[in-house]
C-alpha cells in the first residue's frame, strides 16, 4: 500500500514536472524580451546622448566659426573705413596723382533738358 502510494505520488509529480518546462520557457522568453527591449532602450538612449554631445561639439565649432567671421567682418569694416578716410584719400590724390581742388569758376553746371 505504501508502495502503491509512493508510486501514485511519483505519477502525480511526473505530471507536475511535465508542466514546469513550459512555464519556465515562457518566463525566459519574457525575460529575454525585456532584456532585449532594455538593451535597445539603453543603446538608443546612449547613442542619442552621444549624438547630442556630438551636436554640442559641432554647434560650438560653428559658434566659434561664426564669432571669428564676425570678428573678421568687423576688422575688414574698420580697415575699409581707414582706407576710405578722406585724409588718406586726399593725400594720395594730391601727392601721388597730382590732382588739385577746383576753383569755383572751374565748375560747370550741366542741365538735362526736360523736353
Amino acid at each position, binding site marked *: 500500500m505504501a508502495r502503491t502510494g509512493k508510486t501514485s505520488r511519483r505519477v502525480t509529480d511526473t505530471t507536475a514536472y511535465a508542466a514546469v518546462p513550459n512555464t519556465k520557457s515562457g518566463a525566459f522568453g519574457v525575460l529575454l524580451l525585456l532584456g532585449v527591449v532594455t538593451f535597445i532602450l539603453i543603446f538608443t538612449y546612449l547613442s542619442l546622448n552621444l549624438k547630442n*554631445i556630438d551636436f*554640442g*561639439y559641432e554647434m*560650438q565649432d560653428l*559658434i566659434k566659426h561664426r564669432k571669428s567671421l564676425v*570678428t573678421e567682418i*568687423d*576688422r575688414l*569694416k*574698420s580697415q575699409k*573705413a*581707414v582706407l*576710405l*578716410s*578722406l*585724409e588718406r584719400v*586726399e593725400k594720395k590724390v594730391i601727392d601721388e596723382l597730382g590732382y588739385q*581742388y577746383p576753383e*569755383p*569758376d572751374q*565748375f*560747370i*553746371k*550741366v*542741365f*538735362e*533738358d526736360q523736353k
Partner: protein
Amino acid sequence: MSLNNTERNRVFILFIFFSLWVLVIGASLVKTQVVDYGKHVSTVQSQSNRIIELQPKRGTIYDCNGEILAISVKAKSAFLDNKNEAESDLIYKRILKSRIRLTKAQKKQIKKRINQGYKFVWIKRKITDSEYEIFKTINKRTKGQSSLNFIEEYKRIYPHNRTASHILGGVGIDEQGLYGIEYSLDSILRGKGYQAKVEHDARNRIFRLQNLSEPENGRDIYLTIDSSVQFFVEKELKETVETFNAKSGTVIVMDSRTGAILAMAGYPDYSPAQLRKTDPAVLKNKAISFIYHPGSTFKVILAATALQNNICSPQQMFNCYNGSYKVLDRTIRDDHAYDRLSFEDVVIYSSNIGAAKISERLGKRRYYDGIRKFGFGSRMGIRLPGEEKGILHPLREWSGVSLPYLSHGYEISVTPLQMIRAFDTIASGGFLLQPHVLKDIDGVLLKKPERKRILSSGTTLRMTEIMKQVVIKGTGKKAQIEGITVAAKTGTTKKIPRRGAIVRKVKYVSSFGGFFPARNPRVTMFVVVDEPKGLFYGGDVAAPLYKSIAEKLMFYLKIFPELDNKNEIRL
C-alpha cells in the same frame, strides 16, 4: 550529473562568494548612485562645468551717411603667467630686446609685479597683429613654468584718426567712455556683460554653452555729423589757426532747416586713440565749452529784438557821435567814426555807439527778454558732455552801463553753439531750433526736436537783408562768394584780463557767423578764432575761413553758384 558532498560544498561556497561579490558591487553602486549622488555630481560639474564672463561688444558710431567713425574689434592682450620669477625675468628681458614698444611706466609696472610675485602680470593690452607674432616667437623660445598667454578683448578703433575727435571723445583701456559722445552715450554704447555656463570634456573642448543672463551688446548710433564736411572744416580751421598763430579755433556747421550739426570742429585737436597722451585742455570741445564775449556778432540779437519789438524801422537814423560816446563814467568807441547811421547801417558797419543808442530805445526789460528767448544763459542739452551755459546776469544785477555794453556783446558770455543757434533762428524763418548731433539709435530715428517761433517772418526777412549787406558792403566783405549770397555778421572782441593781471598785449577773439544761400538758407555756420596774432578783426581772420569752408561745402551739398552762362551746359 550528480555531485558529491565535497563538490556541493564547493559550489555552495562559490555561490556564497559570488553572491557576496554581487552584493558588495550592488551596495557600492547604491552608495555611488544614491547615497553619494550629490557629492559626485558636484565633483563632475566642478571639473567639466565653468562659468565664463563674456564681454559685450561696444556699439559702433556712424556718421549720417553710414561711414564708421568708431568701431570695436577683437584684439589680443598679452599677460605673463608668473610661476617662476627667474624665468619670468628672462621672458621680460626678451620682450625688452624685441620690437615691442613699452612705455617707462609699463616697464616699471611689469618689473614690480614680477618681483612682488604676482601670478598674473599684464605685459601689453590690445596688441597689434605684428606684436602678437613677436610675442608668440618669444613664447616658443620659453621653456619652463612661466609663459606668455593671451586674452581676447575689444579694442576701439577710430578709422578717421583725428576727424571729429571732439565729438567722439574717446574711451579708456576697458572701453569705458571718457569724453565726448563716447561718454555721454556710454550707457547705450556699452551694452551689458553677461555670464554663460559651459560644459567641456577632458580636453577642454566645449560641448554645451548656456547663457545665464541675456546677452546685450552695445547699440549702434548714427550721428548727424557728415565726415566729409567735418574733414573739410577741420582742414581749413587748422590752416587758419596756424596762419594766424592763434591759440585755438572752432567751427560749427549746421543744417539751417533742421538744426542737425553737420560738423563741429576744434583745433588743436587730438587722436581719440591716444587719449592718455593728450593734454586735458585740448580734450575740451570748445564749440560747447568755450565761453567768450560775443562782441559785434551780438548786434544781430539786438537788431532782431529791436525789429521784433517794432521800436524802429531799418531806415531809422541814429546819432553815432563821431566815434566816441560817454555813458556814465565809461566811453564807448567805434573803430571808424560815424556821425549818423541808419539802423541797418549800424549793423552793416558794426557801430558800437549806434548799437548802444538802439539798446537805449529798446530798454532793459525788452532786451533782456529777447536775449533769453534766443536761449542765452541756459544749456540747450546737445547730449555732449561739458556744455557751458554762458553768463547772462539777471536783470536786477544790471548796472547803468550794462545795456549799452550788452548791445555790442560785452557783459555777457556765450558759447559758439549758442551763437550759431541764435543766427540759425534768422536762417530758419524765426524758429529757435534745437541743435543736435544724434540722428538715430540702432536704426530707430529719434523724435524730431521741438522748434519754437521767436521771431516773425517779417523780422527775419529784414534781418537777412541787413546781414546780406554786411557781406556785400560792410565788415564781412572777405566772406563774399561768387554766385552765392551770404548773410552774416563779423565780431571782434577784446579779451578782458583778469583783475590784477599784467597786460602786455591785448588779446582778441575773432568771430564770424552767418548762413547761405541767403534766399533759401541751407547751411548756417559759426567760426571763432581765439587770440589770432597780427590781424585780429573778425572780418580779416574769421570771414576768410568762413568763405573757404563755404566754397567747399556748397559743391559738396550741391548748392550751385549762380554764375555766368559760360559755366552752364544744357543737354
